[in-house]
């Protein structure tokens, strides 16, 4: 493969920002020594991210407790963290990381090359699919010297370094024994306690090697009930409502002297997934008809209080290769009916089996009503996510349509896996994606745009909207990233003004 | 002065004002024993309940009841309660259910004493044991600690009599006190009642359908029929020379032992036809001013 300047270019940017190491530029009037309570919805089943892919684990721990060699900042750029710098070999297969000599784990142990190597190797054993997908491309890892780590890939991958900014790249304290309940990392906060069903509390790492945390403790409170979340915020119990899951209640926080509303983007594409194993849905005309029949802006307005960006493919605005394809299937029920007729489909009846999440059942109600308008009978079923949606829809493919927000970054790759629950099998798309992954960095973005367009043209799914990063903070809380570019709820940049 | 004076007492029930006691007047002198005789449903028990102020909520009372010169029908519950159980007491028909099953009988009696005096717990217990002893309860000191279900019917009725007499009342209302008891026990309890009433010198309104009992215990008798007093007088007088046909019927049916074998048993209707006599059956009273008495049970 060809050599690349991608890594070098990034490294140049990093050199300038090295000293900032993840700071979002706090105002001078910050106070330290207070506590921060963040209301979020889903509690992790376990804290062991090598076993579980639950997004709630990195939400609380990534960048706060665990650190990675490189991180993603709020603008979607790769920034240094434990590594001050890195370089890529000319064949794009070998990455050499220079570790920050100051870096230590919270336990006091320095972050050495050996620790990094053993951590990465440990991660490669993990059962988590995210870990396996991110790390399977690694051929071997070795410590060049105390402060230098060399990772050799089996083939070049534009996705790899990006994956290393998330859970696959977490560098564990070698002393950690119980990942499920006692995480140990090198971040500005250390894990303090987990009151199951209630909260996870982090406390300040007093010996943090970089810019110290600004709060003595940070609590993630788990409040699944949307009304209860709003009540907690309104009664002054929360500093930040980390996930505003009832956007209709936003009006309660319109007083800008008391609250700040942050509305940005996330990596979550809310997708109306089709089961491509179903004969009717194999037909592109039928899929396109469904896409034309759904008024996505209307859906966002009705289901998510008008918050969220209508998208047209499996990409979100913070992706470097994002292209606005939202106009691909404008709302046109007449056209939808015509396409159905063209496809020769009459009396179409489809199941819409959705997981119980704040967004999916309402979206299903909306979609069922709209598809009813073009004569498609939709039977909605709500399934518990872990215990029923996963085995029945995800594993066994027992569904026609479903709605899920795919929260991981760059999860467009899932469309290249015919075994993935959509059973989408498109050789053109696969080769386009493969081409982009292994392409020279300068070709990555245009190649990805091609791949994304294939999905849109093929109506591989109906890409409903980009899940908004909707956050309410009490006045005085600053530094919250507008766009959630990673799975982390990154508190390292947050401060409280007095 | 009469200990009890009832004047023109009318008691009716419910929205339809069904009359149970109609224009009744009677007097009981201190120490006097008045028998009140009548068939079931004649209004005996309602009359007794009215006197002691324990009518159900839906009763309407008209007329006057004075006890020791005090008007009872308008007396507030709190003041009435101070008289009940002290000067005016009652012995009920059903000894099996008249005692609280969850409380030791001695305590029930002791509370009654404490309720009407300031005596201390210790002396009260002794008083209760004494009274229990007097009413013929063997091993009275053990029985005070018994629960009602541990006692026989006769024992329970003795307890109830003891409770009725313990505060030395001036009037005891006995509502068929022996009906629920075995014949042998009946006689004993009756003798006891006779002695004890005499010993505390209490007047008595003795309600029964049994003429024999009344004759053995009471100096005077009143016959009630369909809510009205139809005859009243000295016991021998009324029983031997009944002036009202209903009384005659009662007496005849009571003397069944005088009927020769093979002969038809007499019934009241042989002597008395309710449709012809002035004693109308319970009627709906109309246009009668009714005062709802204070609710009590």
């Amino acid at each position, binding site marked *: 493969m060809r050599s690349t300047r991608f890594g070098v270019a990034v490294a140049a940017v990093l050199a300038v920002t090295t000293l900032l190491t993840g700071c979002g530029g706090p105002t001078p009037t910050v106070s330290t020594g207070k506590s921060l309570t963040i209301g979020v919805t889903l509690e992790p089943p376990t804290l062991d991210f090598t*076993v579980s892919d639950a997004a709630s684990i990195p939400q609380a721990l990534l960048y706060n407790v665990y650190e990675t060699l490189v991180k993603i900042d709020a603008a979607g750029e790769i920034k240094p963290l434990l590594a001050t710098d890195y370089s890529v070999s000319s064949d794009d297969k070998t990455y050499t990381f220079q570790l920050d000599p100051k870096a230590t784990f919270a336990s006091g142990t320095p972050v050495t090359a050996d620790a990094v190597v053993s951590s990465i190797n440990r991660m490669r054993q993990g059962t988590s*699919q995210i870990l396996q997908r991110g790390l399977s491309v690694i051929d071997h890892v070795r410590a060049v010297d105390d402060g230098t780590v060399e990772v050799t890939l089996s083939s070049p991958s534009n996705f790899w370094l990006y994956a290393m900014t998330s859970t696959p790249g977490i560098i564990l304290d070698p002393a950690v024994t119980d990942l499920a309940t006692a995480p140990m990392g090198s971040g500005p906060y250390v894990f303090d306690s987990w009151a199951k069903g209630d909260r996870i509390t982090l406390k300040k790492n007093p010996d943090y090697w970089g810019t110290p945390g600004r709060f003595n403790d940070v609590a993630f409170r788990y409040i699944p009930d949307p009304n209860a979340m709003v009540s907690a915020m309104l009664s002054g119990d929360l500093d930040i409502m980390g996930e505003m899951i009832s956007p209709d209640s936003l009006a309660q926080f319109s007083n800008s002297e008391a609250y700040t509303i942050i509305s940005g983007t996330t990596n979550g594409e809310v997708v109306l997934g089709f089961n491509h194993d179903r004969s009717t849905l194999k037909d592109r005309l039928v899929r396109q008809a469904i896409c034309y029949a759904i008024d996505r802006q209307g859906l966002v307005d009705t289901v998510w209080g008008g918050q969220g960006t209508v998208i047209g493919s499996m990409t979100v605005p913070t992706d470097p290769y994002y292209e606005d394809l939202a106009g691909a299937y404008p709302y046109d029920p007449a056209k939808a009916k015509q396409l159905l007729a063209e496809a020769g489909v009459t009396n179409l009846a489809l199941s819409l089996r959705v997981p119980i999440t704040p967004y999916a059942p309402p979206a299903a109600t909306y979609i069922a009503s709209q598809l009813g308008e073009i004569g498609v009978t939709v039977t909605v079923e709500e399934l518990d996510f872990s215990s029923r949606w996963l085995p029945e829809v995800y594993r066994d493919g027992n569904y026609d349509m479903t709605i899920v927000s795919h929260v991981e970054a760059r999860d467009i790759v899932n469309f290249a896996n015919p075994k993935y629950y959509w059973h989408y099998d498109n050789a053109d798309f696969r080769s386009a994606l493969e081409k982009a992954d292994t392409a020279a960095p300068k070709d990555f973005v245009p190649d990805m745009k091609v791949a994304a367009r294939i999905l849109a043209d093929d109506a591989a799914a109906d890409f409903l909207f980009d899940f908004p990063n909707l956050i309410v903070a009490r006045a005085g809380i600053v530094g919250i990233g507008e766009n959630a570019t990673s799975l982390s709820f990154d508190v390292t940049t947050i401060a409280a003004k007095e | 002065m009469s200990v009890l004076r009832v004047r023109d007492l009318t008691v009716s029930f419910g929205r339809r004002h069904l009359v149970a006691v109609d224009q009744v007047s009677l007097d009981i002198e201190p120490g006097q024993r008045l028998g009140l005789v009548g068939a079931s449903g004649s209004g005996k028990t309602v009359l007794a309940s009215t006197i002691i102020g324990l009518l159900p909520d839906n009763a309407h009372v008209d007329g006057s009841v004075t006890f020791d010169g005090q008007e009872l029908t308008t007396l507030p519950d709190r003041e009435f309660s101070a008289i009940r159980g002290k000067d005016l007491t009652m012995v009920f028909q059903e000894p099996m259910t008249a005692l609280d099953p969850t409380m030791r009988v001695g305590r029930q009696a002791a509370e009654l004493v404490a309720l009407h005096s300031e005596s201390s717990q210790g002396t009260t217990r002794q008083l209760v044991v004494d009274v229990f002893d007097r009413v013929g309860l063997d091993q009275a000191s053990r029985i005070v600690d018994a629960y009602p279900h541990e006692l026989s019917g006769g024992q329970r009725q003795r307890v109830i009599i003891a409770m009725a007499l313990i505060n030395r009342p001036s009037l005891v209302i006995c509502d068929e006190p022996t009906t629920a008891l075995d014949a042998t026990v009946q006689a004993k309890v009756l003798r006891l009642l006779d002695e004890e009433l005499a010993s505390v010198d209490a007047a008595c309104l003795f309600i029964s359908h049994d003429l024999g009992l009344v004759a053995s215990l009471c100096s005077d008798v009143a016959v009630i029929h369909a809510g009205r007093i139809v005859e009243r007088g000295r016991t021998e007088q009324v029983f031997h020379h009944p002036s009202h046909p209903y009384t005659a019927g009662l007496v005849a049916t009571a003397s069944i032992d005088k009927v020769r074998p093979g002969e038809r048993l007499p019934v009241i209707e042989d002597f008395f036809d309710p449709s012809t006599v002035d004693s109308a059956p319970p009627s709906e009273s109309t246009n009668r001013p009714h005062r709802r008495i204070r609710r009590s049970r």
Partner: protein
Amino acid sequence: MALLRAATRRVVIFLVTVLVASAVIFGIVQALPGDVALATLGMGASPESVDALRVQWGLDRPLALRYLEWVVGMVHGDFGASYLTGQSVVSQIGPPLAVTAWLVGLSMPLSLLAALPLGLVGAMGRRRWFGVSVNAATHVGLAIPVFFVGAILTIIFAVKLRWVRANGYVPLTTSPGEWAIRLVLPVASIVIVQACFLARYVRAGFIDVLTEDYYRTARAVGWTRWRGLWRHGIRNVATSVVTVIGLQLASLLVGAILVEQTFAMPGLGSLLVQAVRRRDLMVVQGVGMLLVAAVLTVNFLVDLAYLAIDPRLKRGGRS
């Protein structure tokens, strides 16, 4: 001697019942479709990784063996360990049980305290305006879903007036003040509904007494209406209310989940729902067993309480 024999017999029956209950719970729980390994791995799980995790957690071994291990473990006080976190079930049940126990433990006496006067007034005034209105109020209170009551209380007292915290739970040992201020609304919600529920039993109990001859006796010996009813009615009422509370205990412990959900409290019911969703079956079994054993024990104790309250039963006992 007869008493001893009867007691032994009851204990044996009790133990057999508990054992059967354990089999029933194990059977139901194991029959649930779904898979803890898959639930844990989440989206992205591959069949191989699911199988690997199942082997790692010993889920591939025969059912009977796992049942035996579980029962033997429980006899030794070991209820197993959560698949997800590896923590022992006992240590996982502890904190949520404390939350629910506080919630129910505080609500019940308060409900009873409120229900007694309500029921007494309702019984005594059952044909008059004050009793009728009290009775009507209890009927209405009983008909309102408890979580609806909770929501209304939250909006009024936490959001509008800001007198108390909206929701959440802080352990007593962490901060007594916070603990108390967060318990006010959930306890009040339960009390409002539960008091109305109990008041109806209290009322019925007192009305029973009103029709009893011994109440008439009490009145005849000079008790005033109210004091007489209280004096002679309270035991009768206690009998029925103790029965009701005893029978209700399990439902209360689990039913508290409605309030826990409304007030975002990490109680036993929430733990149970969460564990069922994630198919953390050891936890489900553990909580289920705990509840059933608790109720069976309470039923047993209720029988004893009957003896204490109602002397009639000392002979022969309750059939």
